[in-house]
């Protein structure tokens, strides 16, 4: 699965040494010749401080490479993620929004992630009504020990959003405003 995802998004897999920054030649392979036109999605990631942000840090300390598409915003708990954060990110031009929290049962605040879990389907339903593609917003549980999982999620999401193409929300909003 990992290898498959990694190939799909043309991200180098950790090689023999496994340490240090991904070797330049591997990275060169990432940018396939003449692929400057390859759409590089911009994903905003909202990560809880205790599990998911630590998990993303672990991907770093373990030098687990993944696509440079996600920009992380740290919140204390996934339950802090107001649906307006997601809408704001889409309105500002994000091609995708990733929400990460502790696994159910593992929340640093006992049960914050259960609230996230309940709010998420409502948000998804609203986004569907707006005509925003299902795969642009994603909720994933990433624990502090799951650096690899975080990398896999980012790579997989990058691949799926790349297939969808750029989000049209920002342009649509601008057009809408211009027409009014």
């Amino acid at each position, binding site marked *: 699965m990992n290898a498959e995802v990694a190939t799909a998004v043309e991200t180098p897999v950790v090689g023999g040494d496994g340490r240090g920054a*991904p070797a330049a030649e591997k990275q060169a392979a990432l940018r396939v010749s003449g692929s400057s036109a390859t759409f590089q999605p911009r994903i905003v990631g909202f990560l809880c401080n205790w599990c998911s942000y630590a998990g993303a840090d672990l991907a770093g300390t373990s030098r687990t490479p993944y696509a440079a598409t996600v920009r992380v915003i740290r919140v204390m708990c996934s339950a*802090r993620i107001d649906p307006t*954060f997601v809408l*704001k990110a889409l309105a500002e031009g994000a091609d995708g929004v990733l929400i990460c929290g502790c696994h159910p049962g593992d929340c640093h*605040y006992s049960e914050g992630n259960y609230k996230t879990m309940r709010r998420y389907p409502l948000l998804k339903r609203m986004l569907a009504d707006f005509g925003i593609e299902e795969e642009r917003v994603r909720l994933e549980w990433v624990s502090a020990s799951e650096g690899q999982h975080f990398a896999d999620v980012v790579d997989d999401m990058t691949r799926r959003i790349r297939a969808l193409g750029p989000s049209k929300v920002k342009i649509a909003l601008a057009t809408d405003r211009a027409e009014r």
Partner: protein
Amino acid sequence: MEQHRIGVYVCECGTNIAKVVDCAAVVRAAEVLPGVAVATSYKYMCSTPGQEMIAADIQEKGLDRVVVASCSPRMHEPTFRRTIRNAGLNPYYLQMANIREQCSWVHGAGAEATQKAIDLVHAAVNRVGLHEPLESRTVAMCSNTLVLGGGIAGLTASLELADAGYQVYLVEKADHLGGNLARVDLTAPYLDSAQDLLRERIQRVANHPRIETFLGTELRSLEGYVGNFTAAVALAGGDGGSGAGNGSAAQSGDGGGPGRWALEVGSVIVAIGYKEFDASRITHFGYGKLPNVITSFEFEKMVREGRIQTAEGGQPQYAAIVHCVGSRSQEFHAYCSRVCCMTALKYAHELKSAVPGCYISDVYIDMHAFGKGCEDFYRRSSEVKTLFLMYGKNEYPVIRKADPADDCGLLIEVNEQLSREQIEIPADLVILMVGMEAREDSGEVAHMVGISQDKDGWFIESHPKLDPVATTTEGVFIAGTCAAPKDIPDSVAQARAAAGRILARIAKGSIEVDAVYAEIDEEACSGCRICNELCPYVAIEFDAEAKRSRVISALCKACGACVAACPSGAIRARHFTDEQIFAEIEGVLA
């Protein structure tokens, strides 16, 4: 909008960041952002000259906000908060951009990584302008400590704290103290008695006026916050029974009752230890099916009882010791259990002294003799005619019954790595060096005290190198093998370290807690009480007269669940306000 004077400091982290991210380009991009007065890069921002640079700019160039683009805030946010506080700024006027763990260490060199770093810096600059001056709160520090686990780590920590004059509640799930060490005869590499180490400590704990021991007891819940916890403990497996504590000072009061105690503590040390790997999971060894295939702990029992013998009652003519049972394997545990190699050598010594004619084979993968005195112990063991045979990782030897014609009970088939030969080792007794694994109840304990576990179930420390006994929950510490396999000296060192950290806080009398919490604008509050139900800490009270909800800031842990849920938008998460997060979103997408 108010114009700020923001300083942006891009750390090269030696070459850790600079090798991948074009730091000069990040500086150029930051320079032109609104409000930025100074932007520069430096080899190590966290070094003394790096911190002095920030402090000097604050004082000489009149900076009022600081952005440091470097490692994770989980690493150095406290460092840089101190730096700017010492230079006269409110510590919360800092924002960090994580361009190492979440950028240079996961992306290859080039424009994409540099762009990501620029975006993250942009977000930080946007956000920091909206930061408010927050004052840390000071709360009283209760000097009592709860120690979970009565093994060598828990005993040591308890004595350290109690000897300093402070009350300790030592809670042990089993009906006796000593933990796994109580099952051991001699210790490696000096072959001194484990029971001697323990006996004195257990006696002192039992008689110590400042230690109250609860046997057969477990933690049920932990409420409160650093300096001010309430721990509910109860007799394991329901109530009743006789395994109660040796005192009753804590028994009275709320939450008390038969077999239940409510303990007021300021700190918690989790030292619940490990459990041994179940050797029957590796079918190659026939453990549980073949007689005379035993685990290391079963051998310890034999040694303590003074009779090393086979199931048939005879002395073993051939004995074999198999290393890495459950450890260093892709299938079971990838980690090394750290103590088994030296314990195996100790068994060779014990066998030699009890059964001088015994022929001993030591079947290992690699010999890990890293501790003080261990390499020398390995050399001495090699000289007492122990045959060392190497097997391949993930290529387990197979143990089977010998033929009646053989002069031994068992045969071990090994693909020997040094000779590259398939050989059969004779054995009458096979000792399996079972590794350590996290206890079954470790998840439950982690959940109750609010700490995390790694993929193997070991508790995660605040920082593996710089903060090895603290956890992500302030006031909760870990010591000993519950954090990862380790030997007695390391467990004792951690126990003393945890006790030392707690004593330092007790000495101060009070403790500073984060100034981050939620607050309700009573003008905007509609009194709907949705937040009351949501708060996991019961930190929101309802004023029935005013029909308004109110946050009890000391109880609030700043998760922000109520903030996102408030239909009136009346609740603000200090330091994580909607405006601050919106500014970050605009920054990363600019």
